[in-house]
């Protein structure tokens, strides 16, 4: 009963205009049914568990226990206790549904994360707040941003089919709608979302071994399965033929991306002779920065150096590295990549 009246009591306590202080505090100190139960709720005992191993804990041997339990008994076949995920998705109405990806029994399950990367920790503790302080734009209270009008073009004409048709993109060939520049807040500090390592191997049209070597190298340095791509068009000048496999890419996210960038910035780039930095002309205006490494530079990765002999030296490819950030301009993307330790040279592309 006391619990059911609680909302009413709260409302009256808050709404009463003039009242003595004792009345105002009263609801807070009222004893409820749950009051006694609260101290019995245990705080986490995870850290304490390791501190006190007693005799029972010391002698515990899971393998021996399991053997003793199974001795003299016939084990059930796995089909009786193991759930096997269906190989194909047969629609939402099928009784045999796939497991969620997070379940270790699922076919699509990927273990991880395995570490807390140093780059992520630096980003959270240092880089993000510095970028916020550097790019913060103050607006006085009461300021309202000017309204952004429709940036897409309407269909103009008499045709009745123009009604309800999706709006047209910007005029001109190759023109795209540029990203909006939102004012900087703590919610939209640019961060690295992905890294794409790409290697184009036109020699693979003559000898597919080049393709395999490029794939192995990219997998070794990125820790990610590569994807191979076909040429989309015939290009006579480059000897490209449509439909032939010519390039491999590895798309890195989260932990893999952080580890790859750490390795690149702290191990590989400092060892390159007379490396000038990332060209300042890099950047597509949407927050992506790219630069390339030559075959000699790619061979400096520790994963390749450790068994350099395993790769045919003539077949080691170069690669392009694209750092994909959620910045909305070249300037912000450059600020972020400079903060993680990539220098830029030459004329900057703004």
């Amino acid at each position: 009963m006391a619990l059911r009246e609680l909302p009413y009591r709260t409302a009256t306590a808050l709404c009463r205009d003039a009242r003595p202080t004792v009345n105002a505090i009263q609801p807070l100190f009222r004893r409820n049914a749950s009051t006694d139960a609260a101290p019995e709720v245990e705080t986490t005992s995870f850290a304490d568990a390791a501190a006190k191993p007693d005799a029972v804990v010391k002698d515990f041997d899971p393998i021996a226990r399991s053997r003793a339990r199974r001795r003299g008994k016939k084990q059930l076949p796995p089909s009786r206790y193991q759930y096997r995920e269906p190989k194909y998705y047969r629609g939402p109405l099928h009784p045999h549904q796939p497991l969620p990806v997070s379940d270790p029994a699922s076919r699509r399950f990927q273990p991880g994360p395995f570490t807390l990367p140093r780059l992520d920790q630096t980003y959270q503790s240092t880089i993000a707040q510095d970028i916020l302080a550097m790019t913060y734009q103050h607006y006085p209270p009461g300021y309202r941003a000017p309204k952004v009008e429709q940036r897409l073009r309407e269909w103009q004409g008499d045709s009745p089919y123009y009604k309800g048709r999706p709006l047209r993109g910007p005029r001109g060939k190759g023109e795209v709608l540029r990203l909006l520049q939102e004012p900087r807040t703590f919610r939209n500090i640019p961060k690295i979302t992905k890294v794409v390592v790409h290697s184009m191997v036109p020699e693979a049209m003559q000898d597919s071994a080049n393709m395999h070597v490029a794939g192995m190298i990219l997998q070794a340095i990125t820790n990610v399965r590569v994807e191979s791509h076909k040429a989309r068009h015939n290009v006579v000048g480059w000897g490209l033929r449509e439909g032939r496999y010519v390039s491999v890419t590895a798309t890195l996210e989260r932990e893999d991306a952080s580890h790859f960038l750490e390795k690149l910035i702290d191990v590989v780039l400092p060892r390159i002779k007379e490396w000038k930095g990332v060209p300042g002309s890099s950047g597509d205006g949407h927050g992506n920065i790219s630069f390339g490494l030559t075959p000699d530079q790619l061979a400096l990765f520790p994963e390749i150096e450790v068994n350099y002999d395993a790769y045919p030296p003539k077949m080691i490819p170069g690669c392009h590295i694209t750092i994909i950030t959620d910045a909305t301009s070249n300037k912000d993307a450059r600020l972020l990549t400079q903060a993680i330790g990539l220098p830029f040279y030459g004329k900057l592309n703004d």
Partner: protein
Amino acid sequence: MNAGQQTRRAAARAGHSICRTCLSTPRPYATAAAAAPTPEDALAQHIPPVAQSSPSTSYAVNAGVLLSRPPQITRDLHPFEAAFFLYQKRLNERLALPFTRYFYFKARTPADREWKRKMAQRLTPARDIGRYKGYGEEAWNDEVLVGAKESEFQWQVDRLLEDAQTTGAEEEGNAVAAAAAKAETEAFERPPSRVTEADEKNDTKSLARALQRTLYLLVKNKEGRWEFPQDRLRDENLHGAAQRILNTSAGPNMNTWLVGHVPIGHYASNYSAPKSLPTGLQEQGTKTFFLKARIMAGQANLKDSALGLKDFKWLHKQELEKAVEPDYWRQVKNMLAER
């Protein structure tokens, strides 16, 4: 009885829907927002509403510098995080394809033999997850026992170093082979300790302490109060003043970088009685605006300090709470980094 109905009725009876604090104090933002939708205001949207309520009062404006040294090393993992990472690594051993041995070690070479010896000892290619086999009948036994060290960072570092320095022949009693192999393997430098000498001595003047935390420069001013370096703003802008304060207070023997030109926090305090200025204004108190700076190299030196500072300390957030006054702490705590 229906509790929801009762509440609604009680709320209707109560009358006032504005709390008492809001009734007593004017709300400048709300009035500005309420005035916004009028049409003549649409043109003037870029002009900030500047209105001084009482022109006879004023505050002294100070510039302050929040000089910090960012964390130098990664943080210690919580035991739960460490256990989780080890669990995921062992799970990966079960699910990943087997290690491609002959791609890395040519058959019947010394390196290959060493690999075989080490694999026989630890059962898995991974060097930092302890003795565990990911394939076979007993692969389910992937949980570490109570009190096991496998998930600890230092244990994993030790195993990696041991792997680099040994050949696996030591345990087999092959003393000659082990001695020969030991001569070949180079001595590896152990990574320096995560706890430094300054940590043990609790030397708060040193920058080589609390490597996992952000350290802030705190100075003792003329009155004996601990605060961030600050000074009255002269005929200059905020970041110019911050640069001047850095140079004059803690000496030029610091390589510093001013992060941005905007203040990241402010501290306001009132005098006990307002001061009359020669201009006829009443000065109510001081307002200090803090700019952020990072120290790259060097150390603070108060020898030629022009601001009359007596002492300095490098403290992290939790230590800072105890060093400064409660009111100061209340106003500056939100501009300090957690780590």
